[in-house]
């Protein structure tokens, strides 16, 4: 049996792996820019779906469904991003006689509308931040009136999506109208709808979310929390589980609220209930992400559950393979997202070739990548290169492991945020678990890479010299002959020496 992966990059590779482990075949799709991409190489079959621009390829439901039918797929996995939270896509998939690996179109539509889902949660008794919780009327005038009512600062948010796209913080009434216009433009480009709403802006919150799962037989559980407070441009870059802020009591109450949320929405399959956790330990429902999350690996590491495999099983009607009492948190996991971006220049995306990629190794290290040496990160899609996850018995060891693994990672050809991720992980406030979504603004605003010591700079120049001299024909032969025999540098060795 085959599954169509309606996505690209690292998440497509991740889903392909889960398919293979379940004994299923994975069918990939690719735009003109992705003809030889890693997700295509890992798949059992692959089909072209159009030009590089996502709107002409990965965002075309009819083309994706057509490929699924022609290639005899039985189901479609949407990954995250693109059409992953598009109820209409889910509906069309099901209408074509295929299994959609996600929740029902009705629940995706309901939870995808951030305003309607807030209204539902208010009725279900889930705590909410003050803001617009009802109504279809989302005109500039209504937003202005509501902003005055709840008081500035307010957050302008896209009604149709998440991930920080189409979001603006407004401190002064004078800036509201232009912020709404910008948010509408961004929301329209990202989600196909310019609808935005407002809510009260909590000044120093933590972002704590709960992984949830439901099946078609009425079972619903949570798989504990992930703390994702470290964000730049409202996008997460470091996530961990457990959260340093929760104790058993708060974890229990938030987990119960998360299950209450998906019960109210009649949600099935994997989802994430996002909360803001205030300094006084009050928590507020933010939204539900109706898909697998980028940061799902940290939950997989601490619970030992393969979330993607479970998504596929549950979509085909299986009962959840675990109950709430079977689930426990083992140790601590931290994920860092390696992006092609320039932390020196306001985290601007940087596209380019990956001439060389060296993955880190070691106990408790997981590297979920979407590119390998020789691939390219293009301007057309999200600039994520890989997710690096470290798991260890304690938070301290997990953070140390992640730090060493980042130092061992080498990516030549692109500007990446690795040095910035290291600056976060090594910051005393991060080490002590003192996190808020303002962490970067409070501790690392205007960050520049540390000034190289003379030796460090000279080592870099020396390596540059080695790379340059390699291309001089006269030196290649001369120097290669004087290189040490690789066996010689190992020192004394014996084959199969010693006792067993």
């Amino acid at each position, binding site marked *: 049996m085959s599954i169509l992966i309606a996505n690209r990059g690292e998440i497509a590779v991740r889903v392909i792996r889960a398919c293979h482990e379940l004994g299923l075949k994975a069918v990939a799709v690719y735009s003109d820019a992705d003809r030889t991409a890693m997700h295509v190489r890992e798949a059992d079959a692959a089909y072209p779906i159009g030009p590089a621009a996502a709107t002409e390829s990965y965002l075309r439901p009819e083309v994706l469904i057509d490929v699924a039918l022609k290639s005899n797929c039985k189901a479609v996995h949407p990954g995250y991003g693109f059409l992953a939270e598009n109820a209409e896509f889910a509906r069309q998939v099901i209408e074509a006689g295929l299994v959609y690996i996600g929740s029902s179109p009705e629940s995706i539509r309901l939870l995808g509308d951030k305003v309607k889902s807030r209204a539902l949660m208010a009725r279900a008794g889930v705590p909410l931040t003050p803001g617009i919780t009802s109504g279809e009327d989302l005109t500039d005038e209504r937003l202005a009136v509501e902003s005055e009512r709840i008081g500035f600062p307010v957050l302008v948010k896209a009604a149709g999506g998440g991930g920080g796209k189409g979001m603006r913080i407004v401190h002064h009434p004078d800036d509201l109208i232009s912020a709404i216009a910008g948010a509408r433009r961004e929301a329209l480009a990202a989600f196909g709808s310019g609808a935005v709403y407002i809510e009260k802006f909590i000044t120093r919150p933590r972002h704590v979310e709960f992984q949830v799962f439901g099946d078609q037989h009425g079972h619903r559980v949570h798989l504990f929390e992930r703390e994702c407070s470290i964000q730049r441009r409202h996008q997460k870059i470091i996530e961990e589980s457990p959260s340093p802020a929760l104790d058993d009591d708060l974890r229990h109450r938030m987990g119960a609220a998360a299950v209450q949320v998906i019960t109210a929405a009649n949600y099935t399959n994997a989802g994430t209930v996002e909360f803001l956790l205030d300094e006084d330990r009050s928590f507020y429902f933010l939204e539900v992400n109706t898909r697998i999350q980028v940061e799902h690996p940290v939950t997989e590491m601490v619970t030992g559950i393969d979330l993607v495999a479970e998504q596929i099983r549950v979509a085909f009607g299986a009962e959840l393979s675990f109950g709430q009492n079977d689930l426990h948190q083992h140790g601590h996991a931290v994920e860092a997202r390696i992006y092609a971006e320039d932390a020196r220049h306001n985290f601007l995306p940087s596209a380019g070739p990956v001439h060389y990629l060296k993955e880190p190794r070691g106990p408790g290290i997981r590297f979920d990548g979407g590119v390998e040496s020789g691939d390219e990160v293009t301007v057309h*899609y999200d600039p994520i290169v890989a997710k690096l996850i470290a798991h260890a018995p304690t938070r301290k060891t997990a953070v140390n492991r992640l730090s060493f693994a980042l130092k061992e990672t080498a990516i030549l050809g692109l500007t990446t945020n690795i040095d910035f991720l290291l600056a976060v992980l090594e910051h005393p406030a991060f080490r002590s678990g003192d996190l808020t979504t303002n962490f970067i603004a409070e501790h690392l605003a205007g960050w520049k890479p540390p000034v190289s010591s003379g030796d460090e700079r000279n080592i870099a120049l020396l390596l540059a010299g080695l790379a340059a001299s390699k291309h001089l024909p006269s030196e290649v032969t001369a120097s290669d002959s004087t290189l040490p025999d690789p066996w010689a540098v190992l020192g004394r060795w014996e084959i199969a020496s010693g006792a067993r």
Partner: protein
Amino acid sequence: MKLHLSHFGDLFEATFKRDGERLTINSNDKSLEARLVLARDPQFILDVGGRLLTGYALKRNGRTFVSFEGRTWQFDEATPGTRSTGAAGTGDLSVVSPMPGTVIKVHVSIGDRVVRGQSLAIVEAMKMENEVRSPGDALVRNILVAPGRQVGFGETLLELVPPEEAVG
């Protein structure tokens, strides 16, 4: 071998010597010696005063990429004796795109007076809007792009002149 390299605008001049496995680099009167333990392109293992160090380096299209211990360098070839990167000649200023993307809005017209920090245009890439701001008080002399136009990294969007040049 003489190296003339720039790293994000900082200029480095250095002399690199390689005699078998013995390597020497000399820059700004500081020198460093190392032994090349292993060269397995693009991985190099160096012995720097008894400390073993793994680094990575390769050169493509005139640009040298270096990485070790989580730090990366991008070296471009620089012409000896010149200060690298620089827009201005006689006070003209090119405002360039900070990234590859699509121009979605141009806020100004030719002849407009603009002030430092004023938003001139919006370039979008990967669904993120980025404001392109004026580097100083100036007058818009020319606009080279229109909304919808795809631009590359460093491509000129507008040309500015200092406000005093505009008089007359």
